[in-house]
């Protein structure tokens, strides 16, 4: 019934029990977990798709797959609630349940041949990173990449290796980093993301903007993009909602008649403008 | 239209016209003859929706919680049980007395809507009083700013502990069996909690994001819920009977509440909650000469 290539098995609610093979401490409250299973990579998501991660005795929660390798998936997880609190205590070797991929992912065809402005804030860079890395791997299919990222403080910046090394080596790629509040060693920009974005002032011509971050940042980023003449069809974002099943059955992640887990989490601003503002 | 209804509308209209209150909470006629349902009046011209009849059983006290941060005042009609519910909220520091205007309604007892639905309007005369009204000890509001009509004579139709005395005769096994079968049909909709003026906590151990009770609906979980809630409102339960009235499964919840009230009376002396917003709570105060020796 499902038109994706994965075999959903007997019940779409059954996870694969894999293993955590690496944990990277990104910030004081964000860790990236590398997960694999006996059969290799638990599933192969497209950028922007989601995975349901579970610690068997604790619970499940939905996270974006921030990137993937040939044999593993990566989830960058901020400590926020019960499950994530326990996740932050586990060590390499921990058995972990994963199921997916869920959701629509970023509209690759919309991005093809265009310049892309990536605008991330805090842990919101996690889903954005899946698209950035996809562009890096398929570099010829996309135009210039302009990555704009901000966090509360220098130590709250996620994926520092990508920001300050890896992505800088990619051709036609710029990385702009800002923090709300600097420290003694910080030499970069200090200020909020929307103002920083306006300063950089990317052209809307043949460009798609992709943004994800805290709701308040997104709100002002959208205003800034509008000021710079980005049209709603050129703006893509990915939403977060409480989810339980991941397959459009359990009810809670709806916005109007759309389920974020199934029909989202990625929407263009044009699509969002047609939906009730309940997210 | 009865006299009370006319007077209710008059008072509500005046309060709203003079902008003394932002809202008046009362009853309007519901779907069927046996439904009188809460209505929230904000415009003087809507005051004519208000009614007073035999089916105004819903206790409004809990609904006041939604308006505690309003700038202005809210007026609310209170029967005896509602007034005690308001006292509950005042004493628990949930709402401030000066933010509410209480219009007292001496209450002759409300009719049982569930039985009325079964009997139909032709046999309305046969509809008995709500269970909760039979054991009511305070039909007249214990706190109000204005009273509509005269106080009604206090007529206690049933000793509120009568059911308990009977129940206490049972053996432990019989009691356990009884409660197991009662709570086996609990669907954990939390209507009893949500309608209860004593269940006014900001967050509750039974909220689903708390880990104290699994959401699986089973015998032990259901009984845990019923018991913990009963104990948590112990000494604060105003015995309005709304939990039992609201329960879609007809669980005799007041039996638990009355058992606890009876025990409190026996251990700490005669006490009825919600009569006075200032009084000491039997289980919520410290005394050096507490009769319980562990102190």
């Amino acid at each position: 019934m499902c038109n994706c290539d994965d075999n959903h098995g007997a019940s779409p609610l059954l996870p694969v029990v894999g293993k955590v093979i690496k944990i990277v401490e990104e910030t004081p409250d964000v860790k990236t977990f590398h997960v694999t299973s006996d059969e290799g990579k638990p599933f192969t998501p497209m950028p922007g798709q989601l995975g349901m991660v579970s610690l068997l005795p604790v619970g499940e929660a939905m996270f974006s797959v921030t990137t993937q390798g040939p044999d593993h998936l990566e989830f960058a997880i901020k400590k926020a609630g019960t499950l994530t609190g326990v996740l932050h205590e586990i060590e390499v070797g921990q058995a972990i349940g994963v199921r997916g991929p869920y959701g629509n992912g970023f509209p690759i065809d919309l991005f093809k041949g265009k310049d892309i402005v990536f605008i991330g804030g805090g842990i919101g860079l996690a889903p954005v990173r899946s698209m950035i890395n996809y562009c890096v791997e398929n570099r010829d299919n996309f135009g210039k990449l302009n990555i704009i990222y901000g966090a509360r403080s220098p130590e709250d910046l996620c994926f520092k290796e990508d920001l300050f090394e890896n992505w800088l080596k990619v051709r036609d790629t710029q990385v702009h980093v800002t923090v709300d509040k600097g420290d003694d060693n910080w030499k970069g920009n200090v200020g909020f993301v929307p103002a920083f974005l306006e300063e950089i002032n990317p052209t809307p011509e043949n460009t798609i903007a992709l943004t994800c971050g805290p709701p308040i940042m997104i709100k002002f980023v959208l205003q800034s993009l509008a000021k710079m003449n980005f049209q709603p069809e050129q703006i893509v974002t990915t939403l977060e909602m409480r989810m339980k099943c991941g397959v459009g059955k359990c009810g809670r992640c709806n916005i109007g008649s759309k389920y974020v887990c199934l029909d989202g989490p990625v929407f263009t601003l044009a699509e969002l403008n047609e939906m009730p503002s309940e997210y | 239209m009865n006299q009370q209804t006319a007077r209710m509308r008059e008072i509500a209209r005046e309060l709203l016209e003079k902008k003394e209150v932002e809202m008046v909470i009362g009853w309007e006629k519901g779907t069927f003859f046996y439904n009188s349902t809460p209505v929230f009046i904000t415009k003087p011209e809507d005051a004519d929706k208000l009614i007073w009849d035999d089916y105004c059983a819903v206790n409004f006290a809990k609904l006041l919680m939604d308006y505690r941060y309003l700038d202005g005042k809210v007026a609310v009609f209170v029967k005896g049980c509602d007034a005690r519910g308001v006292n509950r909220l005042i004493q628990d520091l949930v709402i401030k007395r000066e933010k509410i205007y209480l219009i007292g309604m001496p209450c002759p007892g409300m009719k049982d809507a569930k039985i009325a639905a079964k009997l139909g309007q032709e046999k309305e005369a046969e509809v008995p009083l709500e269970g909760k009204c039979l054991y009511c000890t305070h039909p007249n509001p214990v706190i109000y700013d204005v009273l509509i009509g005269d106080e009604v004579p206090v007529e206690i139709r049933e000793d509120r502990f009568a059911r308990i005395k009977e129940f206490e005769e049972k053996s432990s096994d019989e009691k356990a069996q009884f409660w197991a079968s009662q709570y086996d049909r609990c669907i954990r909709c939390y209507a009893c909690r949500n309608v209860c003026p004593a269940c006014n906590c900001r967050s509750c151990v039974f909220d689903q994001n708390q880990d104290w009770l699994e959401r699986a609906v089973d015998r032990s979980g259901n009984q845990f819920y019923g018991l913990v809630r009963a104990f948590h409102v112990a000494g604060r339960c105003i015995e309005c009977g709304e939990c039992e009235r609201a329960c879609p499964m007809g669980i005799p919840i007041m039996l638990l509440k009355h058992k606890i009230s009876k025990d409190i009376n026996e251990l700490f002396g005669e006490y009825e909650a919600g009569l006075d917003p200032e009084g000491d709570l039997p289980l919520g105060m410290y005394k050096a000469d507490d009769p319980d020796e562990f102190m």
Partner: protein
Amino acid sequence: MKSLSKANLPQFLEALNQSSQVYVPVVVDGTSRFIPWEQGAELVLDKNSNIPPKYLFFPQTEDLYGYKIYKQSGERTELPSAMEPFVVFGIRPCDVYSLEVLDDIFLTKGYEDVHYKQKREQGLLISLGCLEPEATCFCESWGLNPLNAPTADIMMLDGGDQFLLKAQTEAGQKVIDSQAGLLEEFQGEPPVGKPCTLTVETKGLMERLQPMFEHAVWDEISRKCINCGTCTYLCPTCYCFDVLNKTRGEEGIKYRCYDSCMYPEYTLMAGGHNPRPTKKERVRQRFLHKFQYIPERYEGQIGCVGCGRCIVKCPVNLDISRVITRLWEVEADV
């Protein structure tokens, strides 16, 4: 059409019960629900059950899989799932239709809910038409027929001292054939039913509501709601569920159970953000889900079957039929 003498009903049920578990509506501690049939059971056939038979297909609490954990290791274990055929006797047309709504939800749009599907495939429906709908019934307003559930395997009507039975599916015909000894050919006129006394306007309701998301009427409608889960838990079409863990030592079970959009925690995220923070948003969600979102998502499907259970049981008489009337009454662009 066949007839079954009421005196022979226990024999009929006993015979069916030999091959499949038969569920019948019975009052248990004051609440009517469908439970396994036993000799001597007193069936409630004059009114619909308090608890909808939905739970035979989608139980309030349902185990999904087991797991074992030891230190860092863990494995998922299968639970026994021997699903035997069963019969639901006396299910009303509104509740039969509610299963069609659940079919759309659980079995379409890319994923099949196997837990529901297994039960749906095993359940045979013998529906009893309603000759005299209750005062709270309004199935006709949704285009349903209280006398007929087209997708029931057998449709049944009360004909005084006998039941009149008509097979509507192959499986239903098999049942009729297998009980031929108890059934007689019925030649007379089937009884005529009374219409629902409660009616609401449902035509064009979805289109009406589409521009009303921000309407002030939601504030008004939601005010008396106490945000309990009664309406959702007793609704035959409500299907929202939570997925949770039950861990005992080194073993555990992953299960799901009914959830309700009335609860604030339903949409509350770990970081503290809640897209539906007050009862206005939650009550709006319940009604728009039924009247707009389900018809939009499942092409013309209805989200309410007019069974009236929520009208009967709501502690504050927040009546779904009056809500619909109110939604038509108010000026659309306020």
